């Protein structure tokens, strides 16, 4: 399974923030688990209470978050001048934002409201056009035409293969 060992480690301060969020999550889930009904009258013992297992998991997450936080502090998270490691450049962030926005627009908004093939064609066209726009003005019209063709082909082929050949229902 894929690890994450090929990346540089996160800065201690970032780890401290992550630990704080995880601790809040763990404590929040513990509180929710505590408030769940115990069903003592049905089970007689309360040992089948729905809150036991999530409560156990949340407790472990909270404890591990404390350990992560303590380790970050020991590594100098509270000292001035600890820099955040990694982090992409501006261009990377832009590309990521474009990909995420288009993905959410397609899957969250267009799918279910437009016919699937049309939503897919629009998404594939916009995605390809957006990322190939920066290649330069040379042959841009041709690239846009190819993106439109790719969009229509994807919409058509996916609909045909999934709905007609494999009888899978599409949104």
């Amino acid at each position, binding site marked *: 399974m*894929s690890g*994450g060992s090929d990346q540089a480690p996160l800065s201690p301060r970032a780890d401290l923030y992550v630990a704080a969020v995880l601790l809040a999550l763990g404590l929040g889930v513990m509180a929710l688990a505590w408030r769940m009904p115990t069903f003592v009258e049905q089970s007689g013992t309360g040992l089948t209470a729905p809150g036991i297992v999530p409560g156990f998991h949340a407790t472990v997450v909270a404890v591990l978050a404390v350990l992560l936080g303590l380790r970050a502090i020991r590594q100098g998270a509270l000292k001035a001048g600890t820099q955040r490691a990694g982090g992409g450049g501006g261009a990377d962030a832009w590309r990521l934002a474009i*990909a995420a926005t288009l993905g959410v627009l397609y899957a969250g908004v267009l799918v279910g409201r437009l016919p699937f093939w049309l939503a897919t064609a629009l*998404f594939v066209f916009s995605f*390809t056009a957006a990322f190939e726009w920066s290649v330069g003005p040379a042959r841009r019209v041709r690239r846009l035409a190819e993106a439109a063709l790719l969009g229509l082909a994807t919409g058509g082929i996916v609909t045909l293969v999934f709905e007609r050949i*494999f009888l*899978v229902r599409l949104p």
Partner: protein
Amino acid sequence: MNNPITMLGDGFAHVLQGGAVFHAFWAVLIGIVVGALPGLTATMGVALLTTLTFTMGPNVAMLVLVCVYVGAIYGGSRSAILLNIPGTPASAASTLDGFPLAKQGLAGRAMGISTLGSWCGTLFGTLILAMFAPSFGEFALQFGSYEMFWVALFGIVIAGSLSGGDPLKGYIAGFLGLLVATVGQETNHAYARFAFGNADLAGGLGLLPVLVGVFGVAEVLNAMRGPAVKAVSSKIDSVIPRIRDVTQYWRTIFRSGALGTFIGAMPGLGEDIAAWTSYAAAKRASKEKELFGKGSVEGLMAAETGESACVPGAIIPVLTLAVPGSAPAAVLMAAMMIHGLNPGPMLAITAPEFIYQIVAMLVIADMVKLLYGLVLVKPLLWVLLIPRARLMPVVFVLCTVGAFAITSRLFDIWVMLGAGLVGFILRELRFPMAPLVLGIVLGDLLDKNLLRGLVLTGGDVSPFFTRPISMALCALTLLAVAWAIPGFVPRVMGLIRRRAAA
């Protein structure tokens, strides 16, 4: 009927009926292409193809998914050799010697070695599966709720400790996965946990939408952010493997096959760990250590054999314990459940023939893979050149279809998006994905068995620690945690040495 040879023969006969060879050919091809394309992983391939198998019979569906799994793990080596970019995380070790060989003008030879190593690895692992899975399945029948609880917990801990990176973050990821699995109605009182009055949440978060999100959407985001893939070497020498490579490195093949299968059988570790471990073991034992990292045939052979032997290895705990050995095996297990095949200890009683059918499927997939490895060189070069701006939106569309298709709920698409974004953020924060996925998959197993065990004993927790197998599993789990504590092993070794000296 209970003769293993007869059952294996029946397994082949059963699998080979109904156009199986046709399905094997297209599924292995899709697997190789998915594996070869950087950004598309074997897990994603198996998850997406699960959608296509909904209307197929269980046997054909399993054959297709096994073929995709086998093909994708092998396919990753193509981009590792030609682009110096592992197509799947499993192929990362193959870049060390595969790419230097390609740079020396020996790309064809490297691909031949990769094909041969991968073929031998899968065959070796399949042989081990055929020999040990049935008897281990019978042994697993002794596992009660207490033992299954420890198996699930051991899986999370070992995945957290060894899946690469920071063990502490690995444990957190595993328990976050377990928490995700608790959303929705529980089995004892049908109480909807964390549903907040929402009917969709009460139904729980679907395994497939979450996995497609974590491995599909997160991969698309990751691929679109990074730098573009460099051009591929287009000069390819002969890809026909040399018999001398097998005769010269037969020890490496056996060692890597055994290591790969063993690591595959450990819950949650997977192909990348198998490849790295096999590579490291080969380097330690090699007479040509100095060649490693500069284009060593033995190094490439070890990595490829190890990762491919891991595939059947990872299926062993799926069939015998219902615990996946790797991320793609987790999706394969989910697909088995979708198709009404209930993997786990009872399989040895209810459908012992299924184990041999899986063996037959693995052998068929391995043979088809060998064929493609020899003939499919130029077309794969062309596939590797597809710009990601054109490939990734198509992958995203397939993710959306895959998430929706299982229950036809738009809610599942939102689950996929949420899982994708959370998975991406967790990766950025250096949390390994393997324990997270294992937590999501094993959550139900742990939940049911912990509560069942407590009910059976009336609240007494001692059987969790005193029954022999439970005790052994508990000790292994604690050992795995202790192993991950920095400085623990040297201190213990020092203590032992001092005692011995005294």
